[in-house]
């Protein structure tokens, strides 16, 4: 008895929903950023599940896994730039709480 494709898709939707909830609920920019990473990882799980369930000539479809490889690379670059922005934001304002960052309200 092995899990079906639907179970994998539902589990990845669950992880995506948790990440989305975290982005809405939390006020700390660093934790919001972690929740964004979780949403990216949920998308990766979907891609890997599809790659395994759609075999090409008896082997998994490696196109999906290569895309996950690129997603991980982009996520790493995104985290590096995002954290640099957070550090310079903290230097300018002494806070990383989204409630106190309201300059765009005018």
């Amino acid at each position, binding site marked *: 008895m*092995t899990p*079906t*494709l*639907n179970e*994998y*898709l*539902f*589990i990845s*939707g*669950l*992880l995506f*929903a*948790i990440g*989305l*909830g975290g982005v*809405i*609920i*939390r*006020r*700390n920019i*660093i*934790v919001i*950023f*972690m929740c964004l*990473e*979780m949403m990216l*990882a949920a998308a*990766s*799980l979907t891609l*890997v599940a599809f*790659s*395994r*369930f759609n075999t090409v*000539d*008896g*082997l*998994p479809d490696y196109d999906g*896994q*290569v895309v996950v*490889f*690129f997603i*991980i*690379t*982009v*996520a*790493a*670059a*995104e*985290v*590096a*730039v995002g*954290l*640099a*922005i*957070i*550090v*310079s934001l903290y230097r300018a304002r002494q806070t*990383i*709480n989204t*409630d106190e960052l309201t300059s765009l309200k005018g």
Partner: protein
Amino acid sequence: MMPSPLFYLLAALMFTGGLMVVFMRNPVSSALSMVLSFIGLAGLFVGLNAYFIGILQILIYAGAIMVLFIFIIMLLDLKKEDEHPRRGAAMAAGIIIPVVLLIQLAGVLATEQDSPKVPELMLQEQAAEYDKETIIHKRLADNRLPDVHLTGRKIFTEFNFPLQIIAVLLLVATVGCVALSKKQTKTVVKKLPAQRIPTIASAPDLTSKKND
């Protein structure tokens, strides 16, 4: 392919880790729960015969990115998040919107009556497709899945151009990080004298170095 109980165990690990990221007050606990969540996710990847992606997930997310997060939390010296009086609205929105999303997803998945079962891999039949000298051929003939070799073959043949674009992206990100985290230049300092003066007064070490 892994059996169902193991799948549910890893999924539960991932799920609890994710919930702990959202509901822990201390950012350091959030970061460590995220490692837990990603270890569960890497287990799921390994269960899907994607060994390379699973290892990459642990190395990059749990190894590199989380250390970066914890490092920044340490640098910024954050206090625990205070209780906010109008937390209720955000809390309600943050629970209702994901639940609506999940209900929609479950509705879509329920329309598929017999969800596809996992197809068997045919390793030995595929061995003839590759040259006799290659590791891919030897492993496939051995009835083992040469996951890393097949992924690498794909990346360096079909996805060669995207790979180079990604390399440029990494370079740009590196340059961007250095530019962002550099100290403010003199021109900016001149524009904001009022902000600069108290910083110097509160950090005597900096001023003594400036005099040198």
